[in-house]
């Protein structure tokens, strides 16, 4: 290893953060891509690399196999153990990245949905020799369903097709035809989102961190440039202020008399912004007040924004508890007792429409019963099919009736307040994931 193998640091601590995911079928080059990103950004340290070199040599390889870095998954795949989403980290100095690495196999719709739920960008890998396949459609549909705003279609293994521009152009054109068919292209653009294309070789490193010389015909961004330029979650749109209360702080037992009447509503801003003096409404009860103070620890803020965990103090004494939602009075939504949603079933035990489940939406829970299963979606053909129940990896459109009112937005408008999970109270397992229509 060269002595310049140095992680970049950011002394101002001002790097932003991007969560993204990789999707591809087995052998499309996902592990190699991740390994290459970690390697070229100097995130792989010497001891790990030594291990990888040894293993590569043992397997008779001449170069270090970068896919060994994510070999944990490989081994499991061979043994047929449940494959799961793995999270990996690297930093460029200007940005910290969290990669959700989900195996692409057909049975793993639920893993992809899980990985996609926190991702703001998806890299969809296509093998240049194979072009757009059924699984490409599946991955694209799921990325779209789970509302990933930025999709990068990466045509990999360009080295195996002589870095031929015609092949790349054809794959891009094919992809766009299909993306138009399923409405992906239109709705991505309507939502202010995007689809980009890039040719690359994960093995050689073409167009990842370095451009190299093999594809002078491509003048778009490299992979790392795309990642660096992608907006962080929630910085793109003006969303209404949504503040689910997680915990209420009432330190009245404290010996400090000043704290006797302290009543702080603690939570994370799921969307939007808030400032001291703003008129707010506490849902579902509809009490009105004004923001008196905003705090993070000891720090007093004048305003706060999406994804900040804060403590809110209100002007009036209002009885509020976990599960309530504080919103701006001008943007208050009507609590609902019925929701229509796309649901991905996650559990090996099929959904039984006769049973009562618990729906957890933000910090609030409600018992729920299935009103109707409208249809399920074949993730390969995108056909709608009638169904009476839901098995693992199925995606269906379902209406639920709720025991408690929920304060929801449509998932398309707001990923945080449009999402919910379904819990089976007998096992306490998370058995489903829902996106409100």
């Amino acid at each position, binding site marked *: 290893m060269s002595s310049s193998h140095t992680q970049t640091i950011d002394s101002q*601590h001002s790097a*932003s953060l991007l969560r993204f995911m990789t999707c591809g079928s087995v052998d499309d080059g996902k592990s190699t891509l991740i390994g290459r990103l970690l390697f070229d950004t100097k995130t792989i340290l010497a*001891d790990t690399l*030594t291990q990888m070199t040894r293993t590569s040599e043992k397997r008779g390889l001449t170069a270090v196999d970068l896919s060994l870095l994510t070999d944990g998954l490989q081994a499991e795949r061979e043994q047929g153990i449940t494959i799961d989403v793995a999270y*990996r980290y690297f930093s460029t100095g200007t940005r910290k990245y969290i990669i959700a690495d989900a195996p692409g196999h057909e049975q793993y719709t639920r893993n992809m949905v899980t990985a996609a739920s926190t991702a703001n960008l998806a890299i969809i890998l296509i093998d240049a020799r194979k072009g757009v396949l059924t699984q490409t459609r599946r991955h694209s549909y799921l990325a779209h369903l789970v509302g990933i705003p930025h999709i990068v279609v990466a045509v990999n293994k360009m080295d195996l097709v002589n870095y031929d521009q015609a092949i790349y152009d054809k794959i891009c054109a094919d992809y766009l035809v299909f993306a138009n068919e399923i409405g992906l292209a239109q709705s991505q653009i309507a939502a202010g989102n995007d689809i980009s294309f890039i040719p690359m070789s994960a093995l050689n490193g073409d167009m990842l961190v370095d451009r190299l010389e093999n594809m002078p015909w491509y003048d778009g961004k490299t992979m790392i440039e795309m990642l660096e330029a992608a907006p962080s979650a929630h910085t793109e749109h*003006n969303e209404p202020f949504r503040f689910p209360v997680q*915990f209420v702080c009432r330190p009245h037992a404290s010996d400090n008399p000043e704290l006797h009447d302290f009543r702080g509503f603690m939570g*994370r801003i799921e969307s939007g912004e808030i400032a001291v003096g703003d008129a707010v409404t506490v849902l579902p009860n509809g009490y009105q007040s004004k923001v008196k103070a905003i705090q993070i620890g000891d720090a007093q803020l004048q305003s706060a924004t*999406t994804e900040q965990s804060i403590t809110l103090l209100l002007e009036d004494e209002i009885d509020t508890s976990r599960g309530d939602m504080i919103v701006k009075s001008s943007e208050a939504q009507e609590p609902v007792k019925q929701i229509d949603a796309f649901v991905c079933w996650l559990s090996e035990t099929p959904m039984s429409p006769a049973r009562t489940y618990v729906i957890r939406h933000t910090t609030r829970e409600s018992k729920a019963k299935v009103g109707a299963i409208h249809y399920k979606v074949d993730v390969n053909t995108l056909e709608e099919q009638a169904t009476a129940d839901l098995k693992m990896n199925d995606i269906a459109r379902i209406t639920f009736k709720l025991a408690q009112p929920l304060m929801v937005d449509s998932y398309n408008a707001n990923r945080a307040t449009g999402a919910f999970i379904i819990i089976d109270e007998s096992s306490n397992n998370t058995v489903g994931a829902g996106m409100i229509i």
Partner: protein
Amino acid sequence: MTTKQENPRQPLTHLDWLESEAIYILREVAGQCSNPVLLFSGGKDSLCILRLAEKAFRPGRFPFPLMHIDTGHNYKEVIDFRDQRAAELGERLIVRNVEDSMARGTVVLKSADESRNKHQSVTLLEAIEEFGFDCCIGGARRDEEKARAKERIMSFRDEFGQWDPKNQRPELWSLYNARSHKGENIRAFPISNWTEMDVWQYIEREKLQLPSIYFAHQRDVVMRGGSIVPVNVPLVNGEVANPVKAGEEIINMQVRFRTVGDISCTAPVISDADDVSKIVLETATSTITERGATRLDDQTSDASMEQRKKEGYF
């Protein structure tokens, strides 16, 4: 609706984002669990979590006590620091000792100098049962090793404290499910998404105090099986851990610890980083993972020695 051009909202910095996520997770534990506990060792990761808990719950008290499972083989500096920090915070600290489990016969060492680290889990389970805890908050991170990359933020343990990879709950969005039946237990990891670098940058930003052994200091060590092994370490109870063995040559070296744990399995690294900003720099230029540094096999240690020589450490 304004478009993104008109209103480019400033994204949070990565440290602010990680901090906010960790606070959110701590509050979820407080909101969902009836009797949680925060595992606190005096080490850097758990010190970060204490700061996060302050930001999450002050001016109230923490909605959980702190607990340390003490192997009896911890560095005195760390134990003293642990007690001091708990006292400063005014929070309740529970200490349960592996040595008590040994006295009860629930922990049996194969030999007197066997590492007690892995036996901590027995004492932990005994404490969970004693207090009826339904959730233990810990400082583990996914970047620590490959096998941890798939660990959940809320990780489910059965009645025997076992982690069954097939029985883990999918985690979507930030909708964490920390429910458990009686006897079962959740392990919550608020800094799962942090790297070693993030931890050091946070310590630097928040000006957190740390036990002295994290910083470069002179120490008697020997080379044992390719590792730097601290010897003749005075313990809290007046005994001495890791006595030097016949034929070993004691070297006095400038070292620091990247992790602090049971003396028998925590090796220091050679370093002259005596403050946090130097450690941040050293972490950035480090060529060895945190775990690799504590258990060096011959070959890697050769490579890293070579590397350090090149960089002028000797």
